[in-house]
């Protein structure tokens, strides 16, 4: 059993507060540089999504490669409510969190009967079906997509046109909230039951807990977080189409970042996003002049190297060098 992380130790707490202070001050340093600001926002967005994925994938041990679905549903909910009903984007955020959470539970009802790879393929198949239906469904804009109506900028409209810094702070607030929630989950009864399901589902069942129920709870939390991230994305780019929010690459990237950061850890998804997003963005900028995709070449090679030399993810590397932490994270054998 993995012990709760010792974030509450004085040194850890100080480090955490320092990190938070740096993150809050960051726009003062890079606010004038749109590329870096956008990248910082994208890192936060992927970190939020990774945290959401991790609730189901890392804690409950149910690996999904269909989580782009809930991100997409959140984004579509936000845009459709604004276009069809002209509602406040903050109601959109609420609806874009609750609806994907509800859909996630619905998807979970049949899929949680499946184990291992059969579950993985089932999540993929559901997400791909919805993707294909959205490409032909006229009411949601089909393959062309829909634009969010542009309104005057301000907090009430959740739109900022000249200076994008508020988006950064909204994403940061969301990440802090989600991470705090996960910290609570990490040491709560629910968190222990979820990890127990991951490690030995039959044992949990024999103790009288319903794995199906607790997996559904994890699925709802996970889907809701992805949905909220989707709403943020829609407000940020003011446009949705099936390829950009429901595409398979989103599902794959979210799972990859979370797994590479470290499955079932609190900081893993943040670390994964903070290292992998800049890596792909910078290598794209530096090498893509040739149009030859050298960034992906390096990326692929690096993933293979991590697989061979650091299979427990970047968090494993971190735990090895971090003097404040106990070495308590075992690599789970699949």
């Amino acid at each position, binding site marked *: 059993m993995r012990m709760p992380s010792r974030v509450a130790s004085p040194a850890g707490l100080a480090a955490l507060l320092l990190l938070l202070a740096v993150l809050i001050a960051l726009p003062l340093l890079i606010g004038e540089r749109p590329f870096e600001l956008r990248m910082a926002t994208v890192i936060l967005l992927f970190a939020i999504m990774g945290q959401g994925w991790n609730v189901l994938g890392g804690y409950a041990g149910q690996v999904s490669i269909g989580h782009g679905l809930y991100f997409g549903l959140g984004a579509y909910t936000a845009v459709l409510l604004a276009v069809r009903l002209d509602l406040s984007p903050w109601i959109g955020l609420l609806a874009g969190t609750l609806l994907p959470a509800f859909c996630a539970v619905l998807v979970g009802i049949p899929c949680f009967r*499946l184990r291992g790879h059969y579950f993985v393929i089932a999540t993929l*198949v559901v997400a791909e079906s919805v993707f294909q*239906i959205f490409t032909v469904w006229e009411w949601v804009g089909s393959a062309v997509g829909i634009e969010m109506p542009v309104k005057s900028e301000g907090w009430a409209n959740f739109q900022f046109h000249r200076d994008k810094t508020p988006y950064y702070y909204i994403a940061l607030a969301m990440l802090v909230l989600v991470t705090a929630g996960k910290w609570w989950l990490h040491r709560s009864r629910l968190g222990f039951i979820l990890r127990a399901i991951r490690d030995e589902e039959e044992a949990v069942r024999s103790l009288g807990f319903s794995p199906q129920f607790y997996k559904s709870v994890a699925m709802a939390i996970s889907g809701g977080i992805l949905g909220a991230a989707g709403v943020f994305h829609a407000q940020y780019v003011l446009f949705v189409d099936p390829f950009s929010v429901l595409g398979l690459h989103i599902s794959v990237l979210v799972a990859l970042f979370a797994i590479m950061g470290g499955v079932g850890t609190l900081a893993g998804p943040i670390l994964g996003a903070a290292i992998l997003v800049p890596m792909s963005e910078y290598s794209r900028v530096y090498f893509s002049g040739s149009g030859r995709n050298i960034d*992906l070449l390096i990326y*692929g090679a690096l*993933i293979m190297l991590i*697989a*061979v030399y650091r*299979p427990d993810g970047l968090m494993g590397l971190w735990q090895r060098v971090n003097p404040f932490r106990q070495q308590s994270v075992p690599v789970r054998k699949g």
Partner: protein
Amino acid sequence: MSEQLIIQLIVSGLGMGFIFALIAIGLTLIYGVMNVVNFAHGEFLMLGMYASYLAYATWGADPLVTLPFVAAAMFLFGLMVYYLLIRKVLTGSMQSQIFATFGLMVFLQALAQFFMGADYFAVQNSYLSGVITLGGVVLPVPQVAALVGSSLATLVLYGLVFRTGVGRQLRAASQDAQAASTLGINASSMYALAWGIGSACVGVAASLLSNFYYVFPRVGAIFVLLAYVAVALGGFGSIHGALVAGLLIGLLQVASGFFISSELKFVPVYMLYLIVVLLRPRGLFGKM
């Protein structure tokens, strides 16, 4: 709805079905022997298609002529991947195995784009272009060839796996690796063999496919997604399952592409998977 049309749909459905089945059998063979899902399998297909196209473009060698060579080259490539990469993560966690093949997928796709660019290439005017007419039914030759070629390849594969000594060892390693190794079967060489044969299957599929399908860096994803569904639908590790599910998927996607819409042709396939695994959680032929 004429009989001609039905026959055309069935031929093209079975043609695609056997191609899916070949790809899926390769996947399921590797999975069955060592419980690893090869995420780079689609990129193996892409490599085979490029090989087939390049042989045609440089020497004018027809894909039909180069088929055995592409299959052999892919066999060696599979061995190379096993010895250089997979063997190193064999004892690791499931996630390190996922990374290894996923990283390979990204790497190979980028490598193809690095050397060939993102352009679409096609083999034109091969031996197998044009149509044949059988009793009033017009059939495109490449698809008939895909049907004949891949069904023959499946037959050869079945012979190899179910009728030879090596095949028996392979199946033994797949059923119970430990028991097999106590009987003197070298597990590591069986693993290598599974990667070799699995890759060679994809090489055959790639050669046949290059007669009527464009090749580009991302071509593998289209076919391998359905091959994964075929593997799961048939039951992970089951060769019969992969064959039956591949054919079923081929027929279903052609039929739904025709009767429903070409954009939604995979949705019924996905629904079929869900329905089947809800009734049989380990697929059609999976070990219960």
